[in-house]
């Protein structure tokens, strides 16, 4: 995916101004449709990021991913964040505006997975691992991370 700036920058008297370009609305609309969440409700409090147990493995914080979704920045789909999310719903519980950020993460994952993309492969597992891993682990892993 090539990165296209979704906004025009201009330097005014007191800093940078961003004007959101309408053509990037489709990405945001798609996320809203797939996740069923009202992305605009997010006011960037950072509660989700502070409660998320996987932030050390992420390049973008969950609240940043939400901001990208609001601005229609498709680069969010290239983050490690959406794949490292463990769907623990800590973010959903903490959000003061009632947004289920985990749904937004899943929507982004689905947008990529549905392009015939597998994030992980069964081929990477040794026979010993396949024998010892409980079904709950393998099944949920494949559901979340493969097409």
């Amino acid at each position, binding site marked *: 995916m090539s990165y296209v700036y979704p906004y025009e920058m201009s330097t005014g008297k007191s800093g940078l101004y961003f004007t959101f370009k309408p053509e990037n609305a489709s990405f945001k609309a798609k996320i809203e449709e797939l996740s069923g969440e009202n992305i605009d409700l997010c006011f960037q409090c950072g509660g989700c990021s502070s409660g998320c147990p996987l932030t050390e493995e992420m390049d973008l914080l969950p609240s940043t991913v939400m901001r990208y979704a609001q601005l229609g920045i498709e680069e969010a789909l290239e983050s490690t964040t959406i794949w490292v999310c463990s769907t623990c719903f800590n973010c959903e519980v903490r959000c003061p505006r009632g947004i289920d950020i985990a749904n937004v993460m899943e929507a982004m994952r689905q947008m990529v997975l549905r392009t015939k993309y597998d994030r992980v492969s*069964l081929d990477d597992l040794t026979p010993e691992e396949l024998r010892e891993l409980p*079904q709950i682990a393998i099944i949920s892993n*494949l559901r979340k991370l493969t097409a």
Partner: protein
Amino acid sequence: MEKNNMVTIHVMGKKHEVPADLTIMKAMEYAGHQFRRGAGCRGGYCGACATIYRTHGSYKLQGALACQKIVEDGMYIAQIPFSPAEKKRYDINEVRADDTAFLEHYPEIARCLSCNTCTKACPQDIMVMDYVQAALRGDVEETAKLSFDCINCGLCAIRCPAEIVPYNIGQLARRLYSKYIDGPTEHVLDKVKEVEAGKFDAEIEEMKGLDRETLQERYETREKRL
């Protein structure tokens, strides 16, 4: 067979008029097709003649065995002579008769959606989804018993949205069942011992000395003598 009881079928898009009471296989041969692949026992047992068909007016693509399914007017047919599924290599002596056998060699069964598409595709009326699920939870006996009628025709494998090959699972389960769970076939082993002990030697010697007519008579009356 009345000459005017004919139906129209399409084989790989080409139209043919064939007698109404023929099987797909016979109908295709009637129409001039020569089977080099996709035909075997012709008796519904080998699984070679997996066929996809659609009945007239229906949107559904269904599966059948060409040697068993009778043609219908408007039937639209294509064959699947071979399903290129991978059969994993394993040493049956080193595989445990539990869930690890399936998860180690066919971990893709974890992707089963319980959608039942496999069951719908099966020409043998097997509850395919149920036996894949039984394998996933390590119930080798249930998997073996439910998949008993499977003839590896491949129709389930080509339709599965999770890309599982159910018949490989059933096969592994039946092998594990007969080796580890069912136990040895005692009656066969006992009979072999009887043969080796010479129980039938005298009778065989006697029969070797008989002439053809007596042998024939003995054969034809065998059931009455029992």
